[in-house]
């Protein structure tokens, strides 16, 4: 599964349970993130043992994107209760740790991995 645009790419590797987001995601409103939310939902439905969200190469994400991760992925993984959830961040982009620590309020068992 993959969504690619001029400025960003979201892909899913089912053998590792890893969703990778790269580039700049500054889409207009939640509506513009619908295809990304659909990919997230498909991953949740697959119920891999561990879901890894790798955002190390994601330079920027706006609040509609954070909402898509929080409401469209984290809460759905928590409600399903079948997968471990890890978010892989990079220190190169300080926003990642800030935003993911916020999202952890929705699922305290979420593991934050920081490179």
């Amino acid at each position, binding site marked *: 599964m993959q969504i690619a645009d001029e400025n960003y790419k979201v892909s899913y590797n089912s053998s590792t349970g890893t969703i990778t987001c790269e580039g700049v995601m*500054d889409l*207009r*409103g*939640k*509506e513009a993130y619908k295809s990304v*939310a659909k990919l997230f939902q498909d991953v949740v439905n697959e119920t891999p043992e561990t879901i890894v969200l790798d955002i190390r190469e994601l330079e*920027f994400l*706006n*609040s*509609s994107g*954070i*909402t898509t991760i*929080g*409401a*469209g992925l984290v*809460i*759905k993984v928590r409600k399903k209760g079948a997968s471990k959830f890890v978010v892989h961040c990079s220190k*190169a*982009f*300080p*926003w990642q740790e*800030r*935003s993911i*620590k*916020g999202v952890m*309020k*929705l699922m305290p068992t979420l593991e934050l991995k920081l490179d």
Partner: protein
Amino acid sequence: MPDKVKLFGNFAEMDDGEEHLLIKVKAATLNIDELWESGSLSASFLSSFWGKFFPSSNKASKAEMKDAVRYIAGELVGNAVKFSHEPDILIRIALCMSENELHFYVTNSVAPKAVGEYQEFIKKLADSDPDELYVEQMEKNALDDDSDESHMGFLTIILDYGACLAWKFEEHEDSGIHIATTMARLPVVRNNL
């Protein structure tokens, strides 16, 4: 001069005499997609500029400053684009340094019928625990896939970046025009000057 002015939070007028960066965009000259892109480019430019010239030799604090400006300016400008109602009223984005705070000012017109709901949300922000409101809004977003408004922009600015927000609403009775200015105060710690 406006006929009515309403303030929310600790609003301070911008000091035009101080050094600042200002970008003005006329909504009428662009379609909504172009306007969104111009807002995104403006936020990106402002963050590159402040990241480059922020007075610190500490690389990490420069990167943090760049990230924070990109996010806050992007969210405020994005709101301005969404709410902007009068095509001939300029969307104005300004950044200026004041003591130990970086001040953001974003001005735009607002449709008269949208003013009430906007102010209600501001009051809700002021009266709520932001952590609780964050969780409440996210849970609501998880249930309501059809709403296009996440209402997470202001909350993440406050919670993730430690910024304070304030607003000025101006009403011009003759023309029926409503103007909103959102101000964000971002605390700035200067390391290793």
